[in-house]
């Protein structure tokens, strides 16, 4: 993958600096971002250095000190923004699974899966899949970073869940690979990061939140809460996605990808809420609030993305 197109002065600086870091350390202080879009694509680009990277970025860029300062500042701003949206209370450690269930049950964000199931046309569904590709082509990767930071029970449970996400030892069943096959089957590009230049800032923010939670040990509880909320809101919507894809004649590998998630996430939601988040909160009670913050952020960034998508389609949420 090549670096994305800049969306402002900061991302222009980031792309220029990454191309020749650390030789370009003389580039000095990064400029302030000039828009939310600019900020979001800059942080997405910096996070990507810790995933698969870019063919046109320096291999040394990930740990370049100048780059780390910019990433830190962008993450601080993002975390402040995400926390400002959350006014929930910390549950008692033993109440974390029930608090997650209540949070998900009370979620009133608009459902894109409902739209796809009954009304969206093929162009709208393809646009949604392009946006979803930013995450689904690295599905589960942000959670994988958390494994070494967890106590015994939560660690075993996360790996049990991740083993299924990564295909149960069979590369053909790895979820990100299933999504890539689905993209090809509906006539879209399947290369990693193919559509990042089309990504809405809401899409980037959703991905940046997950990456930040995964990359920072301090935010391990938020990462696991995010995972739990994601899994707990996947099974039923995935079934609606299957129905919508079939309605539009897009059945085949893309419908099969969502069909797999109907079954898999009906399992994973219990592992995530009880065996991962529940035991993490019991072993590290100060993580209870972080878990709920992460779960809230998952639902909130999805709701913001859904409203942006529906607005683009001219639909009242």
């Amino acid at each position, binding site marked *: 993958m090549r670096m994305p197109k800049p969306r402002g002065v900061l991302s222009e600086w980031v792309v220029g600096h990454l191309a020749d870091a650390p030789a370009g350390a003389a580039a000095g202080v990064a400029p302030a971002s000039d828009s939310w879009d600019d900020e979001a694509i800059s942080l997405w680009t910096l996070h990507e250095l810790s995933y698969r990277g870019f063919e046109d970025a320096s291999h040394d860029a990930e740990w370049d000190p100048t780059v780390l300062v910019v990433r830190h500042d962008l993450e601080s701003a993002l975390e402040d923004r995400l926390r400002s949206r959350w006014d929930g209370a910390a549950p008692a450690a033993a109440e974390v699974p029930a608090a997650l269930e209540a949070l998900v049950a009370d979620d009133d964000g608009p459902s894109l899966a409902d739209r796809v199931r009954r009304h969206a046309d093929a162009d709208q569904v393809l646009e949604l899949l392009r946006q979803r590709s930013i995450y689904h082509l690295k599905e589960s990767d942000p959670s994988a970073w958390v494994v070494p930071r967890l106590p015994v029970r939560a660690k075993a449970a996360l790996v*049990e869940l991740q083993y299924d996400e990564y295909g149960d030892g069979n590369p053909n069943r790895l979820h990100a690979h299933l999504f890539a096959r689905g993209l090809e089957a509906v006539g879209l590009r399947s290369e990693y990061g193919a559509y990042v230049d089309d990504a809405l800032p809401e899409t980037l923010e959703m991905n940046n939140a997950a990456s930040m939670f995964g990359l920072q040990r301090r935010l391990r509880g938020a990462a696991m809460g995010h995972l739990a909320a994601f899994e707990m809101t996947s099974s039923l919507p995935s079934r609606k996605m299957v129905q919508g894809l079939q309605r539009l004649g897009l059945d085949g590998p893309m419908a099969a990808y969502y069909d797999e998630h109907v079954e898999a996430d009906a399992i994973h939601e219990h592992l995530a809420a009880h065996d991962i988040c529940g035991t993490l909160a019991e072993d590290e009670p100060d993580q209870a609030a972080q878990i709920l913050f992460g779960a809230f952020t998952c639902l909130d960034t999805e709701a913001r993305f859904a409203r942006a998508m529906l607005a683009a389609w001219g639909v009242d949420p």
Partner: protein
Amino acid sequence: MSDDFDHPDVVLQPHGPMLVRGVTSVRDADGTVHAVERPVVALCRCDKSSRLPWCDGTHKVIPRQ
């Protein structure tokens, strides 16, 4: 040596499915045998799933008895 942690092979989720670990096949109520390739499966207990014998989350949208 006893285990340090409870880790049962079968877990009944309140108002939810039965989680079963470490099986390679499941026979459903119609007699069909389904191969299992996952470390854990969720078996429907509400009988309303669209993909029996597996849970599909439908129990969450039906009124509790």
